């Protein structure tokens, strides 16, 4: 389990009052999908970086399966059990071919070559990129590159995936492909912490956390917040058109579920 226990964070050199995160408490269990919503500057990315020890809390504690992320002796255990995927796929691909990039993580851990091959093949198959092993990264589409980044994280065999706005720079098809790859990992039992500003991405989560100014403004099932347009607006979020469509249908007496955020789940209610 990833546990945030009253975590606060102030960036070094920043004003003491400019708290990026302020007393945040929550957890992510294996197999659980937790979405983190919030406007730019709400502290979402800081939260993601605290989850694998890239940053350590100014106050409070973050633990991953019982290991404190501040425990430097075990930093690499934490990082290999929490795979990170960032916003811009271009800035996380290090090697000149697809397969060598996926191998980068386990190579760092000193995994022997035959096992490296298995890990690379499995990770590429898991994100639907099998067959592209020898390609150069810049020959891939945006969605493929982001899935390559996911495969790179998976090759560490992490128990958790932390995704920091992985779809915001992708075209609609690329976004769907990435979301599908992520959902397969949740089914496989990995815990996922997905930072996003797409409400539709959050609608399929087990739990949604909304951050404003570094504090948790909401935490609960998506249906507790996604149907409430006024609350969303006050938190700097807005419903996508399909959400407004669903809300309008509800007000016209059609029993559309509150978390319905795609055509399928809205039409099912008709």
């Amino acid at each position, binding site marked *: 389990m990833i546990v945030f226990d009253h975590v606060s964070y102030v960036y070094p050199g920043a004003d003491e009052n400019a708290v990026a995160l302020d007393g945040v408490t929550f957890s992510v269990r294996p197999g659980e999908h937790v979405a983190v919503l919030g406007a730019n500057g709400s502290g979402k990315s800081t939260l993601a970086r605290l989850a694998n020890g890239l940053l350590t809390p100014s106050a409070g504690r973050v633990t991953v399966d019982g290991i404190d992320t501040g425990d430097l002796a075990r930093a690499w255990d934490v990082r290999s059990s929490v795979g990170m995927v960032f916003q811009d796929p271009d800035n996380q691909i290090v090697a000149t071919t697809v397969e060598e990039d996926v191998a980068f993580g386990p190579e760092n851990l000193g995994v022997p070559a035959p096992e490296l091959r298995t890990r690379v093949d499995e990770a590429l198959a898991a994100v639907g990129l099998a067959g592209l092993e020898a390609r150069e990264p810049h020959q891939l589409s945006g969605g493929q590159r982001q899935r390559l980044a996911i495969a790179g994280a998976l090759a560490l065999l992490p128990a958790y995936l932390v995704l920091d706005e992985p779809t915001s720079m992708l075209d609609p098809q690329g976004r769907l492909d990435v979301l599908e790859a992520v959902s397969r990992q949740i089914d496989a039992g990995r815990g996922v912490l997905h930072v996003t500003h797409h409400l*539709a991405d959050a609608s399929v989560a087990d739990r949604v956390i909304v951050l404003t100014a570094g504090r948790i403004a909401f935490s609960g099932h998506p249906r507790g917040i996604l149907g409430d347009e006024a609350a969303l607006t006050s938190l700097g979020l807005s419903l996508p058109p399909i959400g407004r469509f669903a809300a309008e249908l509800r007000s016209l007496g059609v029993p559309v579920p509150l978390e319905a955020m795609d055509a399928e789940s809205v039409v099912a209610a008709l």
Partner: protein
Amino acid sequence: MRLALRDIGYTYAQGTSFAVRALSGVGLEVDRGELVLVLGATGSGKSTLLRIAAGLLSPAEGTVMLNGSPVSRPPEIIGRVGLVFQSPQTQLFAETVEEDVAFGPRNLGRGHDAALEAAREALERVGLDWRTFGPRSPFALSGGEAHRVAIAGVLAMRPEIVLFDEPTTGLDVSGRRAVRVIVEELRERAGVAIVTHDVEEFLGVADRVIVLSEGVLAYSGGAGALIDEPARFQAAGLRVPEVLRAQVMAREAGVPMTCFSLDPHAAAALVAGARERKGKRERKR
């Protein structure tokens, strides 16, 4: 002012083994006061078309016309046709916001004072107070502010036609809203063309739409006809907007829809109304 592209064709790396045909026989017209949407999947030739329209690339075939007369040297139209690139905030460079925004008008040969004047006016247009933001460093701004400063850098040239390439990619809710406001304000005094794969953001407010698919025109006409026939999106490799997809699925599920709408409220009324009619008919029986 009217910008018209006729029968445009373009091939990258012509004459080499890497030659890639990007556009064939594509037309685009943008008139003052119009908002034209250019839709297309990644690799459909949208960006090439934009570069040709902005005078940055000479078409291999076809003509670019300005107010009815052909443009002989494409760079002539730089400035009169402005192009805002995707993530334009990555092109800021000057020491102050004001100087950065004045870069365009200065390049076009406007005097120092005139360029500064134009920069200040452009900053106001994107909703930034020039007294506050003018003297700041463009590298000390928030993401949303930097994005608007970069748009101001194009508007300061006082273009009569403004082209946008994927203006909402990577932006959050407030950033998208700011772009919408800028576009709405612009179309009142200039022509606007927006290239995007984000169908939902602008289709509802566009006067005309062209859809590109693998370098050829797959559709050209009003937004209404496109909304009434969502299969056209799929044919061009585009995702059908979710609200529209829901209505199509509702019809397939037996709700007697007669027409579609992209506006969530109107669409909900259409679906609810059709559902009620169906209910009544069934009760009569």
